[in-house]
Structure formats: structure tokens, C-alpha cells
């Protein structure tokens, strides 16, 4: 049995760990709130943007934009969007696994697959395991729309130049604080827009277009990519902090359990020591009385 001193030291160590996990939980909670607010603030922008994009796309007959070009998909690129930091449960691992699975399936079909890393954790994993085109790490601390624009710019030009044929974005869709679902979205060629949309004739506005609607659509499509990427970034940031909140909460609870079981052990050990001492004293006095 461990000595009293050892157990005491262990309790101290676990208590320190508990302090850290609890602090991390609180930091993650406040970051999560901020990220959630940003997601809410983004909603009107995304909603309005989609309305206009759809209404323009409906009026344009020829959807002949280079970002919509369907080619025989020989070369495939995958954006793997993970968080920069760990200690958030299975958040990054699940996403990396999903990416691995997706890439393996495509490779079995005989495609050439390369990966674009967004976020440090994915970079660390794929660094030696896959053909990495570009990477962006340490970005989630502070980011805005310009990051989404930069990520998009990295992929738009090579696609238009036909350097590759399909682009997929894999990220953790934010369902709620404790559920983040790895999701695969095809970015290029952009899935057709404006179809499957019931246009509410009352809300539909007939506009003059300046420049012409075709040119306008060409301006809007890259913005659409920015919107998709930015949304993924926001959801990743919210999901990461949500996952960290949950996992740090768990860790804190585990620490508490550990502390209470260790304290029990410690008390038993102390009791045993006291009993042993008493026995000694009683034994000693009896011996003296006899003598």
C-alpha cells in the first residue's frame, strides 16, 4: 500500500490538474460564445447573398463560368480544415479520419489526390503522409473574411487553369455544443445554383442589371466560394471550442472523482497509521503495568 505521503502528493497533483482543466473549460466557454455570436452575425449576410445569387442565376441561361466547369475528375484536391490546437476530444481526430477515408476511396478509384491543410492539427498529421499543396496554420486565434478570401484565392486560380479537376472541403459541421459532424462539401466545380429553389414570386424583384447579369454572376461566384469557406471557418472555430468545453468539463469531473477516491484512500491510510500507533502505546503501557 502506498504511503500516506505519496497519496497526499498525488492528491495535490490531481488538484492542480483540475484547476487547469477547469480554467481551460472556462476559456473555451467564452471563446465559444464569441464564435457563436459571429455565426449568428454571419447569417443575414449569407442569407441575403444566397437570395441574390439564386435570383441572378435563374435569369442567366448559360451557366458557363470556369468555376462551374465539369471535367473528367482525374486530379482531386481536398481541403482538410482542422483546428490549430488539441485537447478538444475527438474533434480533430474524427475529421482527419474522415479525410483519410475520403482520400483512400478516391485513390482506389484511381484518382490523384492532394491535400490542402487549413489548421495546424491537419498539417501535423498529413505532413508526411500525403501530397500537401499548401497549408495555413495558426489562423483560428483571430480571423476574418480576408482569411476566407485568401484560402479561396489559393484554389480558384489553379482550378480555372485546369491544374486540377475537383475540389472538396472537409470540415466539422457545427450541430450543437457537443456534436460536430465531419462533412464533405464539393466546392469545385460548384454545384449548380438556382435550381431546386422555389422562387417566391412575391419576393422576387425584377431588377435592372448593371453590368449585365452574366458578368454579375461572374463576380458573385467567387464571393459564393468565400461565403462557403468563411462559414466552414466559423463552424470549425465554434465546434472546436464547443468540443473543448465538453472535454474539459469531463476532465474536471474525472479529476473530482479521482480526488475523492484518493482522499478516501488517504484517510484510510491515516486511520491505519493512528491505529497502529495506538496499539503500540497500549502495548507499551500494558507491558509497563505488568512490570
Amino acid at each position: 500500500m502506498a504511503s500516506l505521503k505519496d497519496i497526499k502528493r498525488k492528491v495535490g497533483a490531481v488538484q492542480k490538474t483540475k484547476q487547469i482543466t477547469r480554467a481551460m473549460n472556462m476559456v473555451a466557454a467564452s471563446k465559444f460564445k464569441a464564435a457563436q455570436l459571429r455565426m449568428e452575425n454571419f447569417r443575414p449576410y449569407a442569407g441575403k447573398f444566397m437570395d441574390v445569387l439564386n435570383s441572378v442565376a435563374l435569369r442567366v441561361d448559360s451557366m458557363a463560368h470556369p468555376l462551374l466547369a465539369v471535367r473528367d475528375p482525374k486530379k482531386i484536391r481536398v481541403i482538410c480544415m482542422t483546428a490549430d490546437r488539441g485537447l478538444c476530444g475527438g474533434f480533430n481526430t474524427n475529421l482527419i479520419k474522415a479525410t483519410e477515408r475520403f482520400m483512400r476511396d478516391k485513390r482506389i478509384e484511381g484518382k490523384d489526390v492532394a491535400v490542402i491543410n487549413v489548421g495546424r492539427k491537419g498539417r501535423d498529421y498529413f505532413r508526411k503522409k500525403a501530397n500537401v499543396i499548401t497549408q495555413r496554420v495558426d489562423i483560428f486565434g483571430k480571423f476574418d473574411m480576408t482569411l476566407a478570401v485568401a484560402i479561396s484565392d489559393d484554389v480558384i486560380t489553379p482550378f480555372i487553369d485546369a491544374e486540377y479537376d475537383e475540389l472538396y472541403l472537409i470540415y466539422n459541421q457545427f450541430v450543437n455544443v457537443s456534436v460536430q459532424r465531419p462533412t464533405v462539401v464539393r466546392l469545385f466545380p460548384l454545384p449548380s445554383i438556382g435550381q431546386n429553389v422555389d422562387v417566391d414570386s412575391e419576393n422576387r424583384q425584377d431588377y435592372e442589371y448593371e453590368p449585365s447579369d452574366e458578368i454579375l454572376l461572374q463576380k458573385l461566384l467567387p464571393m459564393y466560394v468565400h461565403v462557403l469557406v468563411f462559414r466552414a471557418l466559423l463552424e470549425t472555430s465554434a465546434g472546436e471550442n464547443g468540443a473543448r468545453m465538453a472535454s474539459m468539463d469531463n476532465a474536471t469531473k474525472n479529476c473530482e472523482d479521482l480526488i475523492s477516491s484518493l482522499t478516501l484512500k488517504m484517510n484510510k491510510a491515516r486511520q491505519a497509521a493512528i491505529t497502529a500507533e495506538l496499539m503500540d502505546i497500549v502495548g507499551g503501557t500494558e507491558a509497563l503495568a505488568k512490570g
Partner: protein
Amino acid sequence: MSDELILEIVTPEKMAFTGGIEEVTIPGTEGEFGVLRGHEAFLTSVDIGELNFTKDGKKTYYAINTGYAEVTAHKVTVLIETAERSDSIDKDRAQRAKENAEARLAQVAKDDFEFERNRLALIRAITRIRVAEK
């Protein structure tokens, strides 16, 4: 007031502005244009530049990034990737961004795709400085 024009400036981060105004000037890709109440409905793309509107006789200036503007008789919706009001612009940062962009532009060839990116960065920085001085 029923005869005012509603302006909404929407960015990914927030509703930068929403409210009734008298007049707004927007940097469209086909040239700058002004909108008063009762304007014909139209939709246009918007470039990097200066947006300003008049409310209660006072002008407010914004440095904005690409997007589009949707105009109807009573309402103007400007949807852009960034919008900074003149008094919230960090002029020193804009100045540094301008110098950086200029330095990089001098290094890359004209047909490089980095060139376009830096050119846009330079325009953005110049616009921010100009708007900040309003």
C-alpha cells in the same frame, strides 16, 4: 418619416449600418452612383472604394470591399465583404499595409498572380487612408 430611404450595410461580421437616410453614394464597378428615394430597382456589383451616405444632413464615410448593391425604391442593401467607418480606421496600419503592398509589387512580375493580389491590397490601403482623412 415615410419619405426616407432605408440603407442596410451587411458584412459577414455584422450589420454595419441599418437605418433611414437621405442619400447614399456607392462605388459600383461601372462607376460611382448616388441613390435617392424612389430610385429604379437595380442590382450591381460594388468595388473597393468609398461609400458615403447623408443622414440628417451629416455625411458618414465607409471604406468598403467588393460585394454588390441591391437597390429598390425604398431600400438599398449593400452586401460587402468588409466595411470600416472612417473613424474606426487605423491609419497607421493602413499606411503600413500600403508600404508593404508597394514593396511587394515592386518585386513581382506583372503576369504573376501575386501581382493582382498585391495590387488589390494596395488599392484597399489607399482607400482606407483616403476615407480615414474625411
